Each structure stands twice: as C-alpha cells, then as structure tokens.
C-alpha cells in the first residue's frame, strides 16, 4: 500500500502493528506454556505464565493510548480508520485470551494427583494447540491484512468446539467411574472451557480482521450445538 504523505502517520501505524504482533506472540506462548505446565505439572512454568500476563496487559494499555493519539492527531479515514479501531478492539480481546491462559496456569498447582492417572488430560494439549494456532493466525491475518486467513480461523472454531464437547463427555464418564478424581476433573473441565473460550475469542479477532481488511462484515456464524449454554 502507498505511504501516507505524512510519514509520522505510517510510523505510528507500524508501531501499532508491531505491538499487536508482540501481544499475539505472547498470548500464544502463554497458552502453550500453560498447557505444558499442566501436562508436566510444572508449577514454576505455571507461575511464569501468570507473571508474564502483566506484559500482555501493559501492551493493551499502550495500544489504547496510541490509538487515541492516532485518532486525535491524524483523523484516520477508510481502511486506516478500520485498522485502528480493529487494533483497539483486538487488544481488548487478546487481553482476555491472556487471562484465560493465566487462569489455566493458576489451576496447575491445584491439581494434586499425578496427571498420568487422569486419562482425559491427554486430549487437552491438542485442543490447546488448535486454539493457540487460531490466535496466532488471527493476529498474523491482522498484520498481513489477510482476509482469507481470517476466514480460515473462523472456520476452525468448530474444531475447538468439537474438542470441547468430546472432552466434556470423556471427563463426565471418567468422573463417574473414578469418583476420587472429581475435584481434579472439575479443574480440567474448567480448563477445557477456557480453551474453548480462547477459540471463540480468536474467532472474534478474525472477524474484526476480516472487516478491517475488506470493509465487509462476515455473515453470522452458524454455531455447532453446544453441550452447555454460552457463558
């Protein structure tokens, strides 16, 4: 795309994109590390995820400040306006994604039993991976103004939803058969729900990216039947 006549405007937009790319990378790492900490029962890594979340919050605040400055000083129009508004909305969603990862990490020390005895746990890392990739792709789509990639993210949300439904059923069955693990399994259920929400949020980001890139809103998504009502 051609450069703005006012160079400082381009620099601010670039900085905005840089911050969002960093934020996305950190959110993705937070999900990955939280899942790793869960699998390995690594309390140190889990604590690290919780601590690292502060930087994600800080980036959100920085982007907010920058967006307000750009709107006040540059009066962006058209695709520029859609971009900065999308940036503002995206960071608040990515901040939530970071919170879900932190939430997962916080549960790691609460799961006292050796996780190897909890069979259903084996489903969670792949589910986490899909959600993490969605976050990654949604933010890459923003950086590259790639509407097709954004669309692909939206389509992938169904995979996470299906994962969730399967994890839910597996955990319930497992709890019935192993009543002593109910408290651990309850944590795992919440973790699965958190990952499912991360997928939803990544989808929202992708929808915002699609609008920013094309100026068109996506048709309302068809949702698969959920086992639980939306929270």
């Amino acid at each position, binding site marked *: *795309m*051609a*450069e*703005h*006549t*006012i160079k400082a*405007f381009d620099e601010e937009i670039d900085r905005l994109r840089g911050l969002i790319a960093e934020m996305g990378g950190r959110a993705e790492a937070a999900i990955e590390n939280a899942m790793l900490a869960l699998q390995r029962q690594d309390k140190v890594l889990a604590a690290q995820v919780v601590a690292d979340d502060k930087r994600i919050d800080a980036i959100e605040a920085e982007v907010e400040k920058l967006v307000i400055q750009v709107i006040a000083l*540059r*009066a*962006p*129009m*058209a*695709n*520029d*306006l*859609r971009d900065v508004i999308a940036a503002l909305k995206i960071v608040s969603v990515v901040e939530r994604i970071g919170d879900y990862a932190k939430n997962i990490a916080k549960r790691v020390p609460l799961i006292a039993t050796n996780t190897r005895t909890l069979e259903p746990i084996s489903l969670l890392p792949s589910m986490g991976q899909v959600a993490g990739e969605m976050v990654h792709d949604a933010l890459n789509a923003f950086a590259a103004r790639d509407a097709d990639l954004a669309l692909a993210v939206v389509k992938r949300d169904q995979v996470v939803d299906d994962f969730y439904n399967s994890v839910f059923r597996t955990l319930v069955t497992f709890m019935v058969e192993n009543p002593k693990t109910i408290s651990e399994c309850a944590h795992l259920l919440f973790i699965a729900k958190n990952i499912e929400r991360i997928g939803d949020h990544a989808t929202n980001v992708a929808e915002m990216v699609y609008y920013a890139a094309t*100026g*068109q*809103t*996506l*048709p*309302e998504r068809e949702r698969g039947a959920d086992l639980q009502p939306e929270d």
Partner: protein
Amino acid sequence: MTQEQTDLTIANPKMSARDVKVFYGPKQAIKGVSIDVDMDHVTAFIGPSGCGKSTFLRTLNRMNDTVASARVEGEITLDGENIYAPTMDVVQLRARVGMVFQKPNPFPKSIYENIAYGPRIHGLAAGKADMDVIVEKSLRRAGLWDEVKDRLNDSGTALSGGQQQRLCIGRAIAVEPEVILMDEPCSALDPIATAKIEELIHELRGRYGIVIVTHNMQQAARVSQRTAFFHLGELVEYGVTSDIFTNPRQERTKDYITGRYG
C-alpha cells in the same frame, strides 16, 4: 450481515447533470460527469486541488458563462428543464441556483441592503414592510439575525469574516433559491466561524438543495450525506458519505481520503 450496496438513486432530483464536459479552450477540465442533486441530501465535492470541483460546480448555475474560453457540453437540468437552453433566463437561474464563494464578498453597503438588493431587482417585495420581513427572515435563516438586528444599517464589510459569510448565505437565501452552491465557503474562516456555517448547512438541508465544495475532508464528512470524489476532471466515486469515508470502493478515493495522495 454482509454490507449492502446502498441505493443511491435519487427519486426526484432537483438538478441532474448528464455526461457534462467542460473545456477551457482546448483543455478539457471536466470529462463526462453525471450526478443528481436533491433537497434531502447535502452533496460534498472533494478532490485534490485543480481536479475540477469548482469548474463543475459552476456549470450548475452557468457561472462558467463569464469565462470566455469556457465551453460546456452535456445536459444539466433544473426541475427537468435544460438550464443551457437558449430560452433560459440566466439571471433568474442564478437566483434559483445561488452561489456562495470562498471569500465572503458582501457589497460595500449596509447589512440591510446586502439582503434587500436581490429581492428588489427580482421584484420579490411589494414595499418597505414586505422587504423588512424578507430581510429578517433571510438573516434568521442565515443564523445572523440575533447578531445584527440592532445594527442593520452598519456596513456589511464591517462584520467579522464568519458573519460576512453568513450574510452572503442570507443574500443567496433572500431571493428564494432552490439550490445553494458553496465553493469552499469556510476556507477563509476560523474554526468557530466554520462550525457556525456547518451548523447552518444542517439547518438549511431539506429546504434547499445544497452542494458544497470543500478541501477539508472532515468538513465533507461532517456536513454532507452524499460525497463525490473528483480526480483529474473525472467523477471517480459518488456515494453515501459514511461509506466513502469508511469503505471507499475506488483505490484513488481511498488513497486520497487516507492521505496517501501525491
């Protein structure tokens, strides 16, 4: 919801331009422009300097007649009537399609006379009392009455720039126009005076067809409901103002309104 292409059809256009071309000698300044103007929408013309906004605006009340080298082709109608027809009374036309210029140009006469002049030559007032009513009504519509009612005999040129511009709008209004053309009416004004003119444009909408040329895109966004982007004598894009400023369809429009032009 997928965004619908907004219907831009204007049911009862006050003015219609069809394939209008303007030449200054051998040089073509307007290259086949078609557009409609109605009373319900303020139309803004935007585009880089020299793209032909003023030239096209001036075809709408035959102001180009005063430029010897200028030649206009195509058709422009007012209420369906061709304004370039030989039978058209140009003085009458310019009362029906009034014009406000970039630099406020009140006559060096009293505020009262500035307004009364047009109605008098068009025979719109039966007597002094009648004229008083017209002057007050015009100044009220121009949003100037409260500021000048106690000094109607002061010279129009003694007013501030913003007041002078509203006086000129009042002068256009006094002859009961149907359309008011404004060519960068605020470019000589400070922000407060500009805001008052913009507010006035809002109030006049519906009563008059209004076309405004502006180099200030924020102003186009604030005052108009339809925006036309001109480039190199062409009408590149015409649309609902909010669409043009959030999602222009043409690359050239986008580059211009996002500040990527030139």
